[in-house]
């Protein structure tokens, strides 16, 4: 329930308007990092303040909110942020991707395909894809302004020279709308194709760095690569141990101290939905049935 001391979704209305203006500008210039006056939030930098501010600015009383952290609805951060909005906005919350209208995420894109009318809000640590190659902000701004992205390919070249392949496995840079190069936040490169031509609106918020950027629905998003080293999504060797999915991003879970491990869907909602639908993996525990003995 709303605590009487808080405005709807915590931020005051003027702040929300300022953020919405930044969001509109970001939508108008896909992939371009729009500076905004990031506020002090009741959580420290590095805990999703950017994502929280974007969500707070766009949330309405009728929205249904889902929050995930590394794909999971039940980690500490996901729960904390969900409770935060529950307390300050009183909106309905859900773990189901399909039922949500606003999904705030840290470092994963849900496996279930998104649909028109949904908004995906990403938490971003370092918005500037060129930062580690070019430390000067003045220079990176100029590079974006002039579309000078040779340096980005230098990074990929270095990977191939050093490792024989493009070793970047997360935060893999993309070109948006054939114009701006963007950091998709530390999502695994496995998720990059989901950003391309997505029916949902994708918003990115970096609180500490004070930047917002966006990908409007149905926008071209292309992962950078070389002709002779094309972008590939890696496939896992085995399906999810719980639900048997062969096409989702898997987490490795250590099961004992003898080196035992199993691979399980990172997206908890996706995995549980599949299990409810009757799919089973090799290790699935059927809580209401006795485990079949093999």
């Amino acid at each position, binding site marked *: 329930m709303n605590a009487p001391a808080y405005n709807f979704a915590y931020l005051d209305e003027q702040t929300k308007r300022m953020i919405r203006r930044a969001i509109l500008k970001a939508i108008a210039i896909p992939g371009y990092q729009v500076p905004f006056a990031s506020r002090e939030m009741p959580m420290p930098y590095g805990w999703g303040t950017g994502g929280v501010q974007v969500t707070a600015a766009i949330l309405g009383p009728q929205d249904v909110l889902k929050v995930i952290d590394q794909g999971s609805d039940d980690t500490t951060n996901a729960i904390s942020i969900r409770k935060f909005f529950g307390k300050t906005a009183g909106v309905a919350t859900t773990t189901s991707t399909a039922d949500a209208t606003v999904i705030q995420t840290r470092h994963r894109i849900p496996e279930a395909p998104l649909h028109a009318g949904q908004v995906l809000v990403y938490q971003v640590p370092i918005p500037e894809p060129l930062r580690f190659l070019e430390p000067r902000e003045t220079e990176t701004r100029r590079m974006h302004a*002039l579309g000078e992205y040779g*340096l980005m390919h230098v990074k990929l*070249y*270095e990977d*191939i*020279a*050093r490792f024989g392949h493009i070793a970047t496995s997360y935060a893999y840079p993309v070109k948006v709308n054939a114009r701006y190069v963007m950091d998709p936040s530390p999502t695994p490169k496995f998720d990059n194709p989901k950003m391309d031509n997505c029916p949902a609106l994708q918003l990115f918020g970096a609180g500490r760095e004070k930047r917002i950027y966006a990908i409007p629905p149905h926008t071209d998003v292309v992962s950078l690569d070389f*002709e002779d080293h094309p972008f590939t999504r890696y496939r896992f060797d085995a399906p999810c141990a719980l639900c048997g999915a062969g096409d989702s991003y898997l987490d490795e879970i250590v099961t004992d101290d003898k080196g035992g491990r199993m691979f399980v869907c990172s997206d908890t909602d996706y995995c549980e939905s599949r299990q409810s639908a009757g799919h089973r993996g090799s290790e699935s525990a059927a809580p209401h049935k006795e485990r079949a003995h093999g």
Partner: protein
Amino acid sequence: MAELQDVTPDDQPLLVAEHLGKNYGRLTACRDVSFALYPGEVLAIVGESGSGKSTLLQLLSAQLAPSAGRVSYRMRDGVLRDLAALGEAERRFLFRTDWGYVHQDPAQGLRMAVSAGANVGERLMAVGWNHYGRIRDTASSWLERVEIDIARIDDAPRTYSGGMRQRLQIARNLVTEPRLVFMDEPTGGLDVSVQARLLDLMRNLVSELGLAAIVVTHDLAVARLLSHRVMVMKGGRVIETGLTDQVLDDPREPYTQLLVSSILPA
């Protein structure tokens, strides 16, 4: 009888400076410099510290805006353009493709933490080359050309000696086949034997590639070895100009005579 091919440069100048000047408040760094540079010509600007030669190089390479006069460059489409009228994007593009700039300190002209291959390949990637294999092959052939062992292609220039860094800087600049190369004391700070090797390399490359170059140096021997023409600067002005051998063998101005006579004989 061998057929004499006409290698006279075209009739159109590549770079034209007209009454170029730069001052900082009351301090005049350089004034009233005018000349025309033609394709394939190497012009040396010699002078001692404070002569204004470095400022002039910055003006000519559009890194400083002139206080007076103008610099024009003939673009690849044949049109002579005033550099001050170019947009920033155009100027940066020119700098990366049609021009080269060799700094005295190679660390300023290289990415020290990135491999040699990537240093040479960066300009290619900046103009859209998208094939790793081809980029690497081109980088390799340039390293060979500047006499750097190809086995070092994946090493960062941090691990290179000073002479190697300078040669890498040259390769990085020449990979896009520029028509004009600016050089600021390219052999400064290097050991004498290293300088000699570098000068030989530069001489050969300039003649093989038909480059035009403007070389700022205080060393008359470098001017004699590399350049067709020379401008002697003192106090911000050009006090004598002509063919290199003319100016060095038949110096007319008092200051030029002083400079020439100050060289210790070999």
